[in-house]
Structure formats: C-alpha cells, structure tokens
C-alpha cells in the first residue's frame, strides 16, 4: 500500500486519462473524438518541445559558470543585471511553462530572486516573437502601449516577490537531480545567500 501511495499523482492521472480516452474511442461520441484530437495535437507539440527545452537547459547548466551568473545578475548586479535578464527573456520564445526551468537554473547559479522574477515577467509580456505576432493582429500602437505598461508592472511585481521571499525566508524548490548530482548547487548556495 505504501508503495502505491508513492506513485506521483501525475502518473496515476495519466493512466486514468489513457483509460478514459480508450473508452471514449470505443464509444465513438463526438466529444470523445474532439478530446482525442486535441490531446494528440497538443502532446505532439509537447513531445518535441519539452525534451529540447530540457536538453538545452542541461547544456547551459554544464557550461555557464556560477561566478559569471552571480557577478552579472546576482544580488549586487543593480540595474544592469535587470537589463540583462529582461533582454535574455525578450529574445526567447515559447510558452511560459517552458521558462520556469530556465528561471530555476538562473536562481540555482546565483541570480537574485528579483532578477529571476524580472525574467519571468519579461518572458511573459515582452517576448519579441510574440509581440510581432500581436502587432500583426492588434496593431503596433496596442502592442507598444501594452508593452510599455507591462514594464513597470512586472518590475514592481519582481520587487514585491523578492521582498516577500526575503521576509519569509523562502527559496525556490530544490530539485532532486541537483542533490543527487552532489553539485555545489542550491543547498550550499542558499546558506550564504542571505
């Protein structure tokens, strides 16, 4: 029984979902067919997208030196550090859930909390590929005004998040594979961070 409970919820849900899909397929209802269609379309994208994202992050993890991140976007990086993370975010593409691993990697290597959330804010609102698309359908005036309005909002959000995390002594999650690898990673890092 104990072992059963240790199975992650996601796997159990996926199994149930697979059974459901199969049942719907047999029943041949239109909603079921739509669900199967949407599922296949979205999972095809994920199957390609997600491994690529993680392989790139693994490579970045291996290559980007910790001192470099600490120096340029760390606690004492000031406005220049903020500009760096915003530019980094602007030249990327893809959905926000793909940015969380990168944000986590930045944090693990010594990027300040404020800059990590600045990165996430810029990633969700100022990505250039997305803004090109947006301008195409909603016009340049809309896109530029929305972008300009977003900047102060996420800068403020990042400051609040960093202050909250500092006040409560919160850190990001430590990932199992970082501990297993025995790297001088988040655990040791968290200690001399404050």
């Amino acid at each position, binding site marked *: 029984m104990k072992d059963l409970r240790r199975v992650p919820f996601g796997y159990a849900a996926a199994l149930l979902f697979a059974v459901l899909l199969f049942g719907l397929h047999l029943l041949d209802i239109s909603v079921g067919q739509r669900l199967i269609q*949407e599922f296949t379309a979205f999972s095809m994208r994920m199957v390609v997208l997600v491994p690529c994202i993680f392989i790139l992050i693994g490579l970045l993890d291996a290559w980007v030196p910790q001192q470099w991140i600490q120096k340029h976007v760390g606690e004492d990086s000031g406005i220049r550090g903020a500009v760096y993370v915003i530019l980094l975010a602007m030249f990327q593409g893809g959905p926000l859930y793909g940015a969380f691993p990168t944000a986590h990697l930045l944090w693990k290597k010594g990027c300040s909390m404020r800059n990590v959330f600045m990165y996430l804010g810029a990633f969700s609102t100022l990505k250039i590929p997305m803004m090109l698309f947006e301008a195409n359908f909603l016009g340049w005036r809309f896109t530029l005004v929305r972008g300009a309005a977003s900047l102060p909002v996420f800068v403020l959000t990042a400051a609040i998040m960093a202050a909250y995390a500092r006040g409560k002594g919160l850190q990001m999650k430590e990932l199992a594979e970082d501990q297993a690898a025995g790297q001088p990673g988040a655990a040791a890092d968290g200690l001399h961070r404050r």
Partner: protein
Amino acid sequence: MPKDLTLIAVTVVAIIVSAAIDRRKTVQGVRKGWRMLMNLLPQFLLLLIFVSVFLTLVSPETLAAMLGRQGGSLGVIAAACIGSVALVPGPIAYPLTGMLAESGVPLTVLAVFVTTLMMVGILTFPVEKAYLGGRLAVLRNVLSLVGALLIGVLVGSLL
C-alpha cells in the same frame, strides 16, 4: 510548425557545438537535462491532460462569445477569469483577439485577456509549483492577475 523546427535545429546545433568542444561536459549536460525531464514528467502529464480537456470543452468560438458578450467592468472581470484559466497558444489567441477588436470589444477587455493569458497560468500551476514552490507560485499568479488588470486599465485609458 516552423517554430518547433527552429527549436529542434537550435538543440541539435547546440549539442554538436558543445560536443566538439568538450564531449564529457556535453554528455553530462544532456544527461542532466534528461533527468530533470524525467523528474518533472508527472507535472507535464497533468498539464497535458488539463490543456487537452480545456481545449475540448472551450473552443475558440466559445471564448469569443464569452468575451464579446459583456461590456464594462463585468467584461474586464470575465476577460481576467478566462485569460487566467485558458492556455491558448499565441497563433490562435491573437487572430481571435484581432477579430474581437474589429467587432468592437473594448481594448481594455482585450488587453486584460491577452495579459492574463500570458502572465497567469492556472493550468500550468503543477509545473510552476515544482520549480518555485507553492507559496511563491501562488503569489506570482496573484500579483500577475492584479498587474494584468492594471495594464488593461492603462491600455484602455491611453488608447
């Protein structure tokens, strides 16, 4: 899907360049990435389920109908709710909002919808929580929701 092809190309080139410089580091990096993926697979499976169910139940036409129906502050609130829950890829979301703009839906409503769509993610919460931890993930989403409303009001009053 050309965007996906770009990502694959970038990944392949990165592996080749990295391997040319240092093979051991490359193997180490790719392995690390793969382990990360495996550890987060349950969260990504949940995301997959949520999104495919959502896209099945709520078609782009339904979204358009929900956004276009209400005006005023009710419309803004509806837009914020829908944008927060929905996970609609840009290539679908932008043509849809463009169409709504032409049919006279206020820009404030559209700005709130677009911004919450991008910044707030209820369906992606399992993935976010795995990286940021529950409390930071909740706070980020709450602040982003408030921020999106501010952005919408700013856009609406400036345009």
